[in-house]
């Protein structure tokens, strides 16, 4: 029985992850490994150590606390990740929370209790709880039990998924307890998807079709969402492909998510600075470009939300 899960964090007062005021449970560990991942700390299925240079006040108590001698002021990365055994001994002594543990095993009771604290806000705003990640379906059993309890408590539930999951498990574990599904369709071309996201998209497209069919039969609403990554997902051919696919499936509404460049800083903190990235990835997407992307979807008769 999965009474606990590896979580990144529980974010309260989320306003962009579904209707109303929500709490978002970020699961750690993902089945994809998209090169642009905005939550790079969520990919690995184990806890990690993060170092935020800007937070560091130079107290240096961490250096003495490290049994492996993995920390050094002389190291430009500060942490020698080859030496680091992820014992996290350095986290507690750090006064400024520059060193933090990313990923905690949390019990379902603790998660539920924390989420319920904000229930009055869900109620007054038409909000609820969103499971996100990482990939929440990768810890299916925990997600299932959490959703079941939330639903029983009258909380609106939503899952954000990359779509790569065993369909039957999803239908059995999560589906009965969901009010809304946010389903990512990132790249339409199979090979391109494999190259940039680390896996082929056959199962993703298949899962989407089946969920859409269920929706048409009166099941849970599925919203297809495409993150716009310059030079990767925002190419016209890709958007055309996705839009065409959605129309084929009888979908009428979809979402395009504007590009957000702040994930670069996160990579750096985890010791994976992204070198030599193309400039567009460090900028916000120009307004005109965003509108062009939207036009492709609109031209296919898709209502953008």
């Amino acid at each position, binding site marked *: 029985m999965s009474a606990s899960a590896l979580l990144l964090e529980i*974010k309260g007062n989320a306003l962009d992850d579904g209707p109303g005021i929500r709490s978002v449970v970020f699961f750690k560990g993902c089945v994809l490994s998209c090169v642009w991942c905005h939550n790079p700390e969520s990919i690995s299925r184990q806890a990690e150590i993060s170092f935020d240079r800007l937070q560091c*006040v130079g107290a240096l108590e961490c250096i003495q606390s490290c049994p492996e001698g993995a920390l050094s002021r002389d190291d430009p990365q500060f942490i020698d990740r080859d030496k680091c055994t992820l014992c996290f001994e350095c986290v507690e002594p750090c006064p400024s929370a520059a060193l933090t543990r990313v990923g905690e095993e949390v019990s379902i009771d603790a998660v539920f209790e924390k989420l319920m*604290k904000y229930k009055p806000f869900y109620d007054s705003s038409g909000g609820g709880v969103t499971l996100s990640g990482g990939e929440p379906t990768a810890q299916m059993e925990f997600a299932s039990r959490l959703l079941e309890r939330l639903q029983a408590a009258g909380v609106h539930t939503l899952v954000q998924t990359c779509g790569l999951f065993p369909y039957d498990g999803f239908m059995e574990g999560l589906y009965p307890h969901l009010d809304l599904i946010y389903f990512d369709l990132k790249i339409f071309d199979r090979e391109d998807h494999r190259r940039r996201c680390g896996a082929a998209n056959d199962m993703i497209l298949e899962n989407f079709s089946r969920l859409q069919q269920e929706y048409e039969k009166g099941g849970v609403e599925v919203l297809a969402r495409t993150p716009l990554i310059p030079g990767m997902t925002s190419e016209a051919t890709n958007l055309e492909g996705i839009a065409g696919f959605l129309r084929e499936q009888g979908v009428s509404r979809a979402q395009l998510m504007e590009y957000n460049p702040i994930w670069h800083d996160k990579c750096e903190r985890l010791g994976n600075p992204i070198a030599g990235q193309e400039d567009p990835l460090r900028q916000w997407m120009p307004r005109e470009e965003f509108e062009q992307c939207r036009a492709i979807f609109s031209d296919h008769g898709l209502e953008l939300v």
Partner: protein
Amino acid sequence: MGLPAITEQTQPHDRSQMAGRSSLSATLKQALLNPTAGGLLRVMAAQFTLRPSLRKYLKGVDGWINFAVGLKTHSGTVTQSIAFRDGRISVKGTIPDDADIVLHFKDDDAFVDMFTLPPNEALNLVLKNRVSLDGNPNYLQLFNFLISLMMKDKHAKVLAEEQRKDLAARREEWGEGDDTLSEELQSRPQYRMSCTSRDAGVVGLEDPFLPEYCLTDFPRLELFLEDHLTRKPEICAERAKLLTHWFREHGFETDKNEGELAPEVRQGRAFKHMMSHKAPVIRKNDLLAGTTTRNEIAGATVYPDANGGSIWGELFSIDKRKLIPFDISKETIETLHTDVLPFWAKRNFVEWVRDENGSPDCQTINERWVAYFVWKTVGISHTVPDFGRVLDLGTAGIIAEIEARLNEPGLDEAGRGALLGMTLCLEGIQAYASNLAIEAGRLADREIDPARKAELESLSRTCQRVPHAPPTTLDEAFNALWIVWLGLHNENADTGLSLGRLDQLLQPFFARDLARLTTTEERQAYVKHAIELAGCFFMRCTDHFPMTPDIANFLFGGSASNQALTLGGVTPEGEDGVNDMTYIFLKVTEMLCIRDVNVNARFNLQKNSTAYLDRLCEVNFITAGTPSMHNDDAIFKSLAPHGYPIEDIRDWSATGCVEQTLSGKHMGHTGSILMNLVAGMEMALHNGYHPLMDWHLGPETGDIEKMSSFEEFFEAYITQQTFLIDKAVEYNNMLADVHARYRPTPVLSALLGGCIRNARDATSGGATHNTSGVSNIGLADITDSMLIIKKLVFDEGKVPFKELKEALDSDFGDAQGLQALVQNKIDLFGSGDEAGIEMANRIAERFHQIYNSRRNYRGGKYTAGFWSMSQHVAYGFLSGALPSGRKAGKAFTPGLSPQPFASKNFLDNICDVAKLNPEFMDNNIAFNVKLIPDAQDTREETVNTMKSYAKTYFEQGGMQIQFNVVTSETLKDAMVHPENYRNLLVRISGYNAYFVTLNREIQIELIERTEFGL
């Protein structure tokens, strides 16, 4: 201070360097300091002796102005005095016993700085206690005025240069700005939501949100607003002059002719004289007749009987100063200097207390700025008059009631005097209204435009009737209210006199007027007229400026008169009180976006609709900063233990900033004391010594290094803070006593429930309910400091108290790790941790208990509030580092809002603040929240989120909440492009101000406030 700026070499933020570079400073710093100081004074003496153009200023209407000023350094390196006696000026190396004021300089540097810094920076020397004043500050003002006569051209140059440098420095610090930010703000009124449901109390408005109207539909209001934002208000000496002349002739302390007159009668006669002779001014195109001052657009009244002397030294520079400058005519300067201010130099609240009590410590502490500020030094009218009686009875009806009371048996002389004073005042108001009627008629005769002619004729008829008789129409009601209101303003200096529940009072007039109309067109035109009337009323109120010396720009930055208006809630019977006028006032609030009237909205969870709450949030979004919202249930809870009748509690309204007053019958002086809760903490850390004051004033509560438990320290803190509370109470009571004896308020008393029945002035306890409200500043900072001391020093023993104190003494210089630790790794108030809530409630409960057990002059209790006006910035600027990690000089959190780093989740903030017990907060709170709108969201989504925050906060028990819906980026843009943000409204802590008129410290506090996305 206004002392001469001898060097032009000024770097605003680098004092030491500047002093070092000045050759004069170098000279002064040597042993020649004393002779040089004496030499400067002799130069001044020679100038005023030899130059007739200067010499004439030594004489006033009452003869030679005699006074002496002493200058002294603590070490004795300087001892000088200058005395003006019957036109002769003497400079001495000693200080005479009868010096009116002595400036004590902490050290030689302070002395040199005083003479080398520009006037606005010299002010900091006083605030920071590097110079302390012993004696009557009016004479320092006079001394500064005389200096400014010699130096005014130089001062003007320095001020101009300062402003030029300031803008350049802003550009450097905040960048060139981004026009899209101001465009976003300006675009907000363009979209306006429609209402989905109508409240039961709305009888006439088709869509209560009134989305069909915008400012451009009201050219009259547009013009008034443009004037308000572009033209300087003018200092007006009319009131001061008329009163001075009357008192000079008839006597102030005693009556020159009859001798035994009650002070209320003297005040009443003087007031009647003033109002009868006050120029009747009707602003071009206004729907309301009358102005508070002679200036038809905007003016500041001078109250020499209160704090008028505080601008004496600035008379020549007040039109050039950077923050909230005023126009002032040469004639006004002459009048104030020769005719008015000398007469009152020793006749004001502060000096009566000083004189009668021999400069008590409680007064000295007040004059050191850092521990508390007692508002009775300025005025007493922090309450809500009973306008209902003006509307029901007219002033004639009230006079008849007074007459009847006078004829009742058993009335003593004091009672007779109090009542006679009230009648005289009401007669004065009536005389003024009659003069307005004549003036309106005169203007109508000359008017060519037929529409305006008709308006003026109507105004003339209106002023013949009201406020004498009860009004019959909305037009008459607004005019009656305004005339009475300006009468009240002409009695008392601006200390938050508030309007109360005008939506409740005016709704019957609106409904009656509307019922007379039959066609849809007529009704629509009437609604539009009602909006315009309410708009004219707002503009008239907002154009009454408090006369603020420059020091007030620092202490109470950007504050207006704070005329609080209260909307919504329930009726005294407990029914839904939201009506047409509620929405009309909200429409006006939305369109005008002005700092004063200070709009406060009540929300009653049981009775008020969510549509109404939606509208409050939409107006708050469009205006960025108003209204502030209150939870009826929590306010009721806070008032219940006082045993007030439930109908009175249900009829509460906000006063000044936010404070609950029982409308029309409660002398709550809710802003009587602004108390710095951090001062006691600094004293507890230093065993009774306060570092900035450099004074061991408090009791010895022990060496913290020897304390063995948290409780011991907690009690030491409570003891120190209680010492300050008792001193403030003592001073407030002394001031209340001189108010009652020398300067009672018969106008206010005539309009405050209980005073007629009790035949007593409001200052003597005539009102039905009597309390004094305190605002306690720094609750979140103190709570966090206590949590940290408890956890780190005592519970875990991680940090010795000695080490913590050393860190504070060095302003965390070598202890950044410790500072980071307390800010990152301890659960603070606002984090969602129970310990924080418990600690905040524990501290609030203790102080509430202490205040409630103290009695004011009128026999009522003191009440405890936790809002901060602007003092969280001023007190922060003057206070040392705190265990909470706050560095010296930084602002405290506004009101009782949690620290920015307490939680990333705004909902934790909301939940924690909502759990504070209203019973400990019977003078209300201010919970400030900065929200960032999301450009992607629709208006409906934005409003829905704001509504959810407010509603859930209220459901959890929260008392008051105020949103600033503006990003830091926008505020930074406003730093460099003030011209694009003329009326960018921000809520400081309880009141609204225009961001661009705030001092730099407050601006930075606002920028640095935590912001939460919408």
